[in-house]
């Protein structure tokens, strides 16, 4: 009597296992195919994303290369890696772009900063932030022109002690009721400029 149960037991389990295994096999195979098909478009989309944000800060006139291609990896003062995208024209570096991070009111503010070979700001945009909507989010280009004011600035313009918001005796506007966010952005950009100054040679060295 008990043997009957034991006899049916392994068979049942084997069937379950094969059933689930079979389905997983089919599923995995199907997905592998789908992955093959979509891998390329997805990679393309990601590249487009990157290009889109880079092209916002990097004027198209100054380069003839694919900005996203062949980025350079450096380390900043704190030892963290920095991915640098380079604009090339005729093999010469005409501009660089990299991310800088500021410490805003509610968390990190991630910006992309593009400089020309002289260290002048070509453009900067906020990629991600957690600032208060309605207060700190005026740093987004879509909401306010404030961020455009950095264009053309460099480490010496304004002079270092005026690289701050007006409230701290600096050059740049703050928003009424929200000083922390602009202050953080100004600081981050200033930091980015200093990074450029410190690593100028590597940055501008033409790629091999």
């Amino acid at each position: 009597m008990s043997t009957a149960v034991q006899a049916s037991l392994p068979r049942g389990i084997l069937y379950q296992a094969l059933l689930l295994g079979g389905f997983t096999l089919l599923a995995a195979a199907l997905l592998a195919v789908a992955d093959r098909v979509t891998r390329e478009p997805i990679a393309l989309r990601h590249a487009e994303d990157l290009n889109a944000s880079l092209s916002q800060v990097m004027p198209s006139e100054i380069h003839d290369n694919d900005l996203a291609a062949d980025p350079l990896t450096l380390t900043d003062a704190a030892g963290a890696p920095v991915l640098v995208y380079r604009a090339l024209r005729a093999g010469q570096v005409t501009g660089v772009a990299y991310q800088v991070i500021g410490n805003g009111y509610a968390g990190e503010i991630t910006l992309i900063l593009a400089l020309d070979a002289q260290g002048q700001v070509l453009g900067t945009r906020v990629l991600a932030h957690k600032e208060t909507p309605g207060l700190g989010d005026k740093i987004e280009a879509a909401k306010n022109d404030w961020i455009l004011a950095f264009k053309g600035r460099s480490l010496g313009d304004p002079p270092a002690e005026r690289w701050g918001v007006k409230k701290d005796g600096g050059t740049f506007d703050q928003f009424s009721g929200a000083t922390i966010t602009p202050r953080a952005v100004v600081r981050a950009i200033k930091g980015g400029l200093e990074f450029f100054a410190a690593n100028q040679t590597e940055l501008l060295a033409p790629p091999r």
Partner: protein
Amino acid sequence: MYSDTPIAGPYAHERTSVSRIMVLVVLALLPATLFSLWQFGWPAIFLFLITVGTCLVAEAACLRAAEKPLRPSLLDGSALLTGWLLAMSLPPWAPWWIGVLGGLIAIVVAKQVFGGIGQNLFNPAMVARVALLISFPAELTRYVAPAPLFSPQAPGFGEGLAITFGLDGPDMVTGATLLGQVRTELGQGHPLPDILPGIYQPWSDAVGTLAGSMGETSALLLLLGGLFLLSQRVITWHIPVATIATLALAATLMNLYDPGHYPDALYHLVGGATLLAAFFIATDPVTSPISPRGQLIFGAGLGVLIYSIRTWAAYPEGVAFAIILMNTCTPLIDHYVRPRVYGRDRKGAPIEYADDADAEVTR
């Protein structure tokens, strides 16, 4: 006299009612309110009237929609008090629509959808305040320095109208509250000793001559009102004492640990809405625990949360959030913390006396 449906006793009753309690709370708030209205002038008076008025109208409308009788609920004074406390927690020169929206949120979303007085789980005034704060941070963090009514720098009646109703009024000299300013400066890495002297004297803050919402100004008058409520036995000491003691303790400990970054206890007590919360808001009976021990836990939790949010979170003042968060805990506290039932031990088992061998004879 001999009704068919018998009504059980007792057939005597203390001379008390819900509206009497609410009136006492209003009385206790009156000195601080009048003082603040005087401090902030016409715009504050307009905002106050708008907020309270909206609350009353919203209450009436909801009662009408729910087909409930208007008079008992409208006259019990709870909507008045909600509007009053909401107005006291807003920047005094906020535009009119802040008051209207706040009143609607407080009465409709936080009170009437729950079924009206006594049924709500969260403090309506604080829900409205928090909802406004996260929706309109700019309007809710714009404060003005006091300019007593009829003083030269105070806006006149017409100017007041313009400020509240957003006509082309004079440019406001806006500033942040004490807590806001200190948080900003600390965030900049300035140590406290550099910050405080210019902007803070315990005495002026206690009297109430700093920028802030109406309920943040005069700590002394609020304390007076709170003591009045205690004396009238409208509230018990447990929540205010526990709140104040915990906040003071936390502040003192952190201040001892690093005086450069953490202000002392007095700063936390007179600054911000601590006293308003401790005596008038945390004690809202509907949303606080019912047992004395539960109330102590509630107050202590409130103190810890107020301190933590003020010190480490993104907002300079944490009273409203802390109140809502502790309101959340109230049912749990009431569930787990109950008075000991007569004749039972804390676990609910009947008491047994160890020495009762002699009291109970062999069975």
